[in-house]
Each structure stands twice: as C-alpha cells, then as structure tokens.
C-alpha cells in the first residue's frame, strides 16, 4: 500500500498534533552557527556529528582493507601508484610488512570502535532516544556534547598517528603485550602505539559519558504513558548496549592503564623473561595472559555493543515495513537481556589456545553455546514478523533482511569456533576472520545502513535516493558473501590470518585465484560504499523533500514531531503515550500511532 493512502487514512491523528503547535512557547534560544552546528547540545545534531565522523572513519578503514587486500590477492604484483602515495611504506610499489600490519591494526581499531561503536550507537542513541521516548533532550545535554568532543579528540589523535615517522600502532586491534608494551619490539610499537593508547583512553571517556546519559535518559525521562514495555525495541536494545558499555569499558581502561605503566615506567604487569633486540629485559613475574583476560572481559561485551543497536533497529524496521506487529515483543526483550548477561560470561572463548585450563574451557564452551538460544529466538521472531506480512521493500527493509541473513550465516559458524576442541584447528585462521566479519562487522553495518535509510528523513527532512539505495544493497549483499564465504574454506584448510604473503606455503597455492577474486570484489564493494556516501551527502542538500510528517506510516513518537524539528523536538506539549509501539494491522487499521488514545471498542489482543 502506498504511503499517501496511509496518511489520508489517519488525517485525524495528524491534525490532532498540529493543534498543539501554535499554542505553546517556541523552544528556541537564539542560536549562532557555532552553538547550532559545532558545539551543539541538541541531541539530533550530536547524532549527526557522530554519524558523519563515523562515515569519514569508515572510508579510511574501508580504504585500508582494500590496500591490504591488494597485497593478499596480488602478492607478486607491484603497484607504483602506492609508492607515489605512501612513499617508503610501499617501496617499489610493494606493501611493506610494517605497513601491512599498520593497515590491519588501524582497519580493525577504526571499524570496531570509531565506526561500529561511536558511529552506530553514538548516532542512533543520540538521535532516537529523546525522540522515541518523548523527551526534549538527553538527561544531560552538556555531558552529551562532551561525549562527542572526546570522540573527536580521540579521532584527531588516531588520525595524527597515521602520519608519524614510525607509523601507527601495528600490534593488531587487540594490542596484546609484549608487542604493544615494548618500544623496541617494532616500528609500530613506538610513538604510534602511545598515540593509539591515548586515543583509546579518550574514546573510552566518550563512550562512558554517552552511555551514562543514554541509561539515565531512557530510565528517567520517558513521557507520560511510556512504560518500559511500551518502548520500541530500538530503545531496549540501546539501553542494554549502554549498560554493556558502562560496565565493560572501565575494565579495558584498567587493562590499558597497566599497559601504559609497563610501556613507560618499567613495571612488570604483563612482562616476564623477555629477550628482545639483543637485550635481556629485567622484567620478571608478569603475565601477558592477564592482559588478554582484561581485554576480552571488555572485548566480548564490545561485540554485543556493536550488534545490539543493529538488532534493535532491525526489529523496528522489519515491523514497520512488514506492516505487522513485532512477533514476540517480550521474548525479544528477554533475549536481549539474556545476551547482555551472557556477554560477560564468555570472554575466555577468545583464549582457548593460550594454555587455558581445559576444564575451565569446558564451562566457557557451554556458556558460549548458550548464546545460540537467545540468538535463535531473535531470528525466529524476525522471520515470523516478516511471515505473511505486507512487506514494503524499501532500502531500509532490504538491509534489515540482509542483516538477518548475515546474522544467521555468521552465527552458525560461531558454533564451530565456540567449541574449544574445534577451535584448536580453526584458531587464528581465515575462518575466524570470515566468522566475525559476517556476524559482527557486515551484519552491524547492514543494521546501520538500515537505520540510516529509515531515519534519514527525520535527520535531514529529505529522502535518500532509493535507486542508488537498491544498487547499494544488492552489490553489498552479494559482495559480502563473495568476500567472506570463501574465507571459511581457506580457514578450514588452515590458511592463517595476519600473514601478508603465503606464496612459500605451496599447499595454499590453490587459493591464489580465490584470493584474487576476493580482492576484486572488495574493491567493487568499496566503490559502491563511496556511491552511498555520495548519495548521503547529495541527498542532504538535493534529496527528495519529505512532505508528510510520517512518511513510513510508523507508530513511534519521532514521527509526531515536525518534519524539521528544532531543539526541544515538539513545539507544543510532548505527546502522551497510550499504547505500545507495534499496533500495526489492528482492527482493520494499518497502523495506530502510540499517541492515539485507546478507542472504546478496540480489541485487546496486543
């Protein structure tokens, strides 16, 4: 059914809100360019700042992956143009080992933290929380502004580390000691590593300030009638994401502080019995595994910090666009909660081959495999939401369905890796790379794209170009599978990750053509992402204008605000909520917004 028809069907609801607009104070202070667009305390502007910074980082991180894919796909070839751009890092047009490791490290760091943590939850938590729970702004707009600017400082420091003489950090995004703890361990362990640590410390502060605000706002600032169980699932997902962040980032911080002491003050928290660069170090009694424990106690929740907001948005988008209530709302909330708890109890599955006691490992296997239960519940509910729905295949819907597909394929390989015995074979192979890129990386990117296509009209008052959106979806979807599916086979055959040149390993020669194919596809997929970036910026200024207040026929409160809401969101009173967010296809009506009072003869089924 077309959107226009929806709008006419419920004209009464809309005028009901319009009445409020002129009767109340206008919530605008005098705003200069600086307070409106730069040091803004408006949650919507802060959300856009997070998004655009995230997009810039995604381009850098994506470009880096193309560069190291060139090396993996065409190790025998030279690319003189690389020397033009990168000088000594690509001497003779060949990517040097130090450069390769720097690329991989920064690719991982940037995409995990700056794009999929800050860019994803930073954007949509800020944009959606006050709009969907019915609040004028966050609990503390000032802390919220600080949250962005700490992220900005972290970004500047990380970006500057790309240009230092010895190059950026190169010890992998996990920065395990001793590689990361000893300056003499390599080029990338010098000033680049220090900048990495300082940047991450700033980033942690940013995440904590943001997370505090998200939780306080969701729990305390809901409008009248918005009980917890009436909240859209996006809000539940962001709430659990913020709780995970607030409880896990401090542990990373404590690990990083100990690392800083080891690096610069000569302590031995992580260091013991080391002979490096012709020199015996005095450090004794330290344990490198201790860092892994601290890191992964944070690192595993981080995976869900990335994934949960995508899950929440996908739930909302699938329900809205299949014109059906979400299937199993409470089960969705319960499974989010279960994932949130389990996220803290499985960290050692990243450490099966570190000499972990196998008896202890068995418990971590069990707890890890338990995550399959809430995950399966969620997948079942998404599919049943789509089942016999009146689906509108907008780009947002397609990306949401793509998310479900990727989450299934990537989740199933998690069962292999979660078993400690199979992990002995698969650990540190391309299988791991394939698994986490599909289930966490690409899936969450899909969730983010879905969110951008869905809420772009709310952000900028214009639509993204849908034709470009469809091209974006299909190329990315097919490309993602073409890139990562073959890596499973490589991993099963034993191809290790983190190696820049496999030519001497004759048994892997059979994968040469496959590697070339993966590289070519990743270049195409990267080009299509640039097309999306073009679409994004072009549409901000030239996109098709949003004419109606509620273009998707959605129930949630953000669509009761004006098309271009000012600071304070609602010009009049904040609407009161009378029902949950998923009254679609009820009593013969296509949708009933949350702000509409319950009718006298309304059925009680939902």
């Amino acid at each position, binding site marked *: 059914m077309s959107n226009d028809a929806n709008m006419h069907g419920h004209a009464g609801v809309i005028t009901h809100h319009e009445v409020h607009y002129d009767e109340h104070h206008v919530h605008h202070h005098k705003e200069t360019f600086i307070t409106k667009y730069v040091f803004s305390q408006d949650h919507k502007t802060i959300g856009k700042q997070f998004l655009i910074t995230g997009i810039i980082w995604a381009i850098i991180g994506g470009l880096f992956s193309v560069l190291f894919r060139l090396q993996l796909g065409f190790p025998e070839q030279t690319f003189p143009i690389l020397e033009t751009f990168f000088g000594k890092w690509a001497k003779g047009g060949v990517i040097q080992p130090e450069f390769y490791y720097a690329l991989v490290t920064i690719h991982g760091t940037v995409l995990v933290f700056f794009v999929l943590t800050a860019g994803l939850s930073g954007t949509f938590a800020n944009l959606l929380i006050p709009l969907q729970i019915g609040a004028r702004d966050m*609990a*503390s707009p000032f*802390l919220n502004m600080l949250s962005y600017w700490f992220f900005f400082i972290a970004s500047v420091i990380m970006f500057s580390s790309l240009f230092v003489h010895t190059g950026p950090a190169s010890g992998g995004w996990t920065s395990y000691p001793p590689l990361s703890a000893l300056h003499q361990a390599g080029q990338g362990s010098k000033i680049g590593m220090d900048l990495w640590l300082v940047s991450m410390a700033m980033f942690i502060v940013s995440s*904590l300030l943001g*997370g*505090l*605000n998200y*939780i*306080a*706002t969701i*729990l*305390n*600032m*809901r409008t*009248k*009638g*918005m*009980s*917890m*169980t*009436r909240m859209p699932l996006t809000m539940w997902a962001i709430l659990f994401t913020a709780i995970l962040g*607030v*409880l*896990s*980032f*401090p*542990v990373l*911080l*404590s*690990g990083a*502080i*100990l690392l800083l*002491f080891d690096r610069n*003050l*000569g*302590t*031995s*928290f992580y260091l*013991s019995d080391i002979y490096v660069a012709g020199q015996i170090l*005095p*450090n*004794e*009694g*330290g*344990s490198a595994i*201790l860092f892994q*424990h*601290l890191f992964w*106690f944070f690192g595993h929740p981080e995976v869900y910090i990335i994934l949960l907001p995508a899950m929440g948005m996908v739930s909302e988008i699938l329900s809205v666009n299949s014109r059906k209530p979400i299937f199993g709302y409470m089960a969705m909330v319960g499974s989010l909660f279960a994932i949130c708890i389990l996220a803290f109890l499985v960290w050692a599955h990243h450490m099966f081959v570190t000499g972990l006691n196998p008896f202890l490992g068995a418990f971590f296997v069990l707890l890890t495999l338990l995550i399959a239960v809430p995950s399966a519940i969620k997948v079942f509910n998404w599919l049943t939401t789509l089942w016999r729905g009146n689906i509108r295949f907008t780009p947002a819907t397609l990306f949401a369905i793509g998310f479900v597909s990727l989450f299934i394929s990537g989740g199933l390989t998690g069962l292999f890796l979660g078993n400690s015995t199979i992990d002995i074979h698969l650990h540190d192979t391309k299988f791991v790379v394939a698994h986490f890129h599909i289930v966490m990386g690409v899936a969450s990117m899909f969730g983010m794209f879905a969110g951008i296509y869905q809420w772009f009209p709310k952000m900028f008052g214009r639509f993204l170009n849908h034709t470009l959106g469809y091209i974006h979806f299909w190329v990315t979807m097919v490309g993602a599978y073409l890139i990562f599916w073959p890596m499973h086979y490589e991993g099963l055959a034993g191809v290790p990750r983190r190696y820049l040149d496999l030519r001497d390993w004759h048994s892997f020669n059979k994968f040469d053509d496959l590697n070339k194919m993966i590289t070519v596809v990743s270049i195409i997929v990267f080009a299509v992402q640039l097309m999306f970036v073009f679409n994004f910026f072009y549409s901000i200024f030239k996109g098709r204008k949003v004419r109606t207040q509620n273009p998707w026929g959605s129930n949630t409160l953000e669509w009761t605000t004006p098309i271009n809401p000012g600071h304070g969101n609602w010009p009049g009173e904040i609407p009161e*909520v009378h029902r949950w967010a998923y009254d679609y296809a009820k009593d013969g009506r296509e949708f009933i917004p949350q702000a509409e009072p319950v009718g006298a003869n309304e059925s009680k089924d939902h």
Partner: protein
Amino acid sequence: MEAVSMQQRKKIHPHKFTLWIAIGSIIMMFAGLTSAYIVKSGQPNWQDVKTPQVFWYSTATILLSSLTIQMALRSFKQREMNRYRQLMAVTMILGAVFIVLQWNGFMQLWNSGIQFKGVAGAGQFLYVIFGLHALHVLGGAIALIVMLIKAFFGQTKTYASTGIEVMATYWHFVDILWIYLFVFFIWIK
C-alpha cells in the same frame, strides 16, 4: 500497566541517577584491577608488600570527611548556610590531607625499595590502584572547591539540594571504595 507507567516517572533526579551508574562504572574498573591482582598473586615470583602505617591515618581522615560532608548536607537542608560553608571547607581540607597522606605512604614504600622497575608484585599494583583512587578523591576535592567558591561568592541563592546531595553520595562512595581497597590489600596476600 497504566498504573505502573504513571509511577515509574521522575522518581529520582536524573543527575543523581547518572551518578549511580557512574559509580557502577568506577566499581567495574577497580574490580578489573583487583581481580588482576588476585590472578597475579597466584603466579610464581609474586612479591608481597607490607602496607605502611600512614594508610591507617588516611583511613581515619577520609572517614571523618564523610562525616563532615554529611553534616554539611544536613546544615544545607536546615538553611544554616554559615555552618554549611564551614563544614564544606573542612571536608575539602580533609580531602586534601588524605591525598597528602597517600602521597606520603607512596614515598615511604618507594624509599623502602619497592619501585616500578623490575620484579612484579603487590607494590606495583598498590601504586596503580591507590593512585587511581587518589585521583578520584582529587576529582571530588576539585568539585568541592567549585562548590565552595559558589557558596562563598555565588550571586544566585539556590536552595535546591541536588548538587550537594550528588557531591555527598560521591564522597561517601570514594570513602567506601577506599575501605574496600585497603582491606583488600591487607587481606589478600
């Protein structure tokens, strides 16, 4: 469902609530550090440390400061602004004394040969953990100074007690955190 939704709202001031979550977050950081300590203490080459006497005095100081800030809060609520200012100043001074005493303890340890370089042990953890705690006290003391300046020179006379309540809660928290850390270092060998 209707009744629940009405009652849930605005029970607690958002700033206070934010503080409680921040406290949870800080607890996680120290939980990370103290569990790292436990893991390491079970490994070979672990060197124990005798905590200097002076930390007992700092414990007394911070306990006393908890008392004074509670009394300050009480005076504020009773509108006795003079006594409030005095008690806040006393609290701030006690906080400063605490930090000086901690520094003193660190110096004693350092001079007794427990330093950063070389063999791992409880001493290195003590510097990091107590040092981070002292930073949290320092942050509180700076906030106290800001509040004091407002109390003495501020133009606006506000009787909303949220700010001072948040301050007092935080101050009690760093106090209890200190007791935990101190007992931890005495007990876990």
